[in-house]
Each structure stands twice: as C-alpha cells, then as structure tokens.
C-alpha cells in the first residue's frame, strides 16, 4: 500500500489547554517528580515563580491533546493497531506555569517508507498567552507493515 505522502504539510486547527495547579501536581506525582516547584506553591513563589511550575515533560499533556487526535485522521491512513512510538523530541522555551493558557498547532512533517516500515512525524508548536513559544515537539510514530 502506498503511503499518503501527499498529506505531508497538512496542518490541524489549534487546540487550547488551560494549565491547572492540581493537574501539574497529578502529572508530577505520576512521573516521580519530587521537586517542590511542582508541588508546593510557597516554594514556587519563593523561587520567583507566580505559580506551580510544570515539569518540562508536561508538554505531553498540553501538546498531546492536539497531537493524539491527528493519529486518527482517516486521511493519514495509519493502522493504529500496528503503531509504535519510535522517537520523541522536545525543545523548550520559557517554563509553563499553572494558570497559563497554551495553544498548540500540529503539522505533518514526514511520511516515509523505510525498511518495510512507515514513518510518520508530527510537529507540535505550543505558544503561551504572551505569544512565547514554550515547546516544539517532534513525535515520530512507526507503523509496522505499512510499506511492504
């Protein structure tokens, strides 16, 4: 089956995410982050932050909301049962804090057959309420058997 390479460059509508204090605490606990900046409001304020600080990998939460639905876009013809997460990159800007509003846009940047595998890479760009780019993510998914 030929891959839908004509969909490289396809963009999706922006998705907004309101960063909550308790969500930061929940995420930090789930990944074992014990830094008080993620849990203790007084400690975060004492360190000069207006509110709790999200761990860098919290990008999975605010950008993921925009990225995951794209994998189900029928135009990309991804066989979800054969999907594995191949690689991930994040490049961060200013820290994300509780109370921030982060808007993420996603673009298909790579669809390629290699060694019998289908490679699909999505790029997410996340911007806070001041227009600062807080995170750029490259999400590379591999579909087994897609290019035989």
């Amino acid at each position, binding site marked *: 089956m030929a891959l839908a390479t004509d969909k490289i460059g396809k963009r999706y509508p922006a998705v907004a995410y309101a960063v909550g204090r308790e969500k930061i605490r929940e*995420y930090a606990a789930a990944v074992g982050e014990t830094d008080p900046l993620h849990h203790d409001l007084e400690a975060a304020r004492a360190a000069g932050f207006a509110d709790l600080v999200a761990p860098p990998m919290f990008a999975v*939460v605010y950008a993921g909301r925009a990225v995951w639905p794209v994998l189900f876009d029928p135009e990309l013809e991804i066989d979800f*049962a054969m999907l594995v997460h191949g690689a991930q*990159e994040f490049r961060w800007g200013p820290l994300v804090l509780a109370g921030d509003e982060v808007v993420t846009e996603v673009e298909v940047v790579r669809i390629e057959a290699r060694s019998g595998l289908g490679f699909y890479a999505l790029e997410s760009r996340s911007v806070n309420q001041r227009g600062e780019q807080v995170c750029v993510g490259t999400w590379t998914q591999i579909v087994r058997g897609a290019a035989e």
Partner: protein
Amino acid sequence: MSLREGASIELRVTPDPYVTIRYAGASGDFNPIHIDEAFAREVGLPGRILHGLWTMAQVARAATEAAGGPDRLRSLSVQFRGTGTIGEEIVISGAVKAGEPGELVAKLEAVQAGAKLVKNGVAVIAAS
C-alpha cells in the same frame, strides 16, 4: 548544584504495579496495552507495558535533577526501543559533555534487565 563537563548522570527507578494506571490518568493515554493485563497478553505482549513517554519523563527527570531544576533543560530527544515492564528496575545513565557556548550535552539511555528502552537520548542543558 552545578553540573560540569565530564560529570555522569544516573537515576534508578523501579516502576510499581500501578504506575501505568496513574500515568494514564495524568497523561490521558489510556491505550489498553498499558493498563489492561488481559488485553496486553491477547496482543502478544508479556503483560501491561510502560508508556514510552513515562520512561522519557524519567530520562528528563535524571537530567533536571542533575542540572538543578526544570528551567535548565532546553531540549531532549530520544529513540524508543523494546517494551518496558512493571516491577523491574530501570537505570538511566549518561555522560555530560561540552555543548554550544553556555550549554552542556548529556548523552543518555534507559536500560531495564539488559534491554535498552531509550537509546540515543540527547539532553541539552543550560550551563550554570
């Protein structure tokens, strides 16, 4: 804490039986291969497997704890391999080298029971 060129980074973590449940709730990734033992076995896995992005979060934590805070981590890229399992210790390790001016670069991997879960991890860290 100040991280220097030539330093090494190590973090050990043993995923407890409910870590994938908590991470599913926290991250929104409810793929049943991570939370449903019977489903995971049906699709040929040894059991529920770890979320790759949870394992990447351990690599990120190794970098930020060594560097002295979340604001120090400028970028992290990883390749995922294999399937992480519950109950077995994961060792994240790497070496710190010089990077661009004002930056350090840590080459990191995550290994569980001799198998790499994360390879070619590269963390760019702001120097203090």
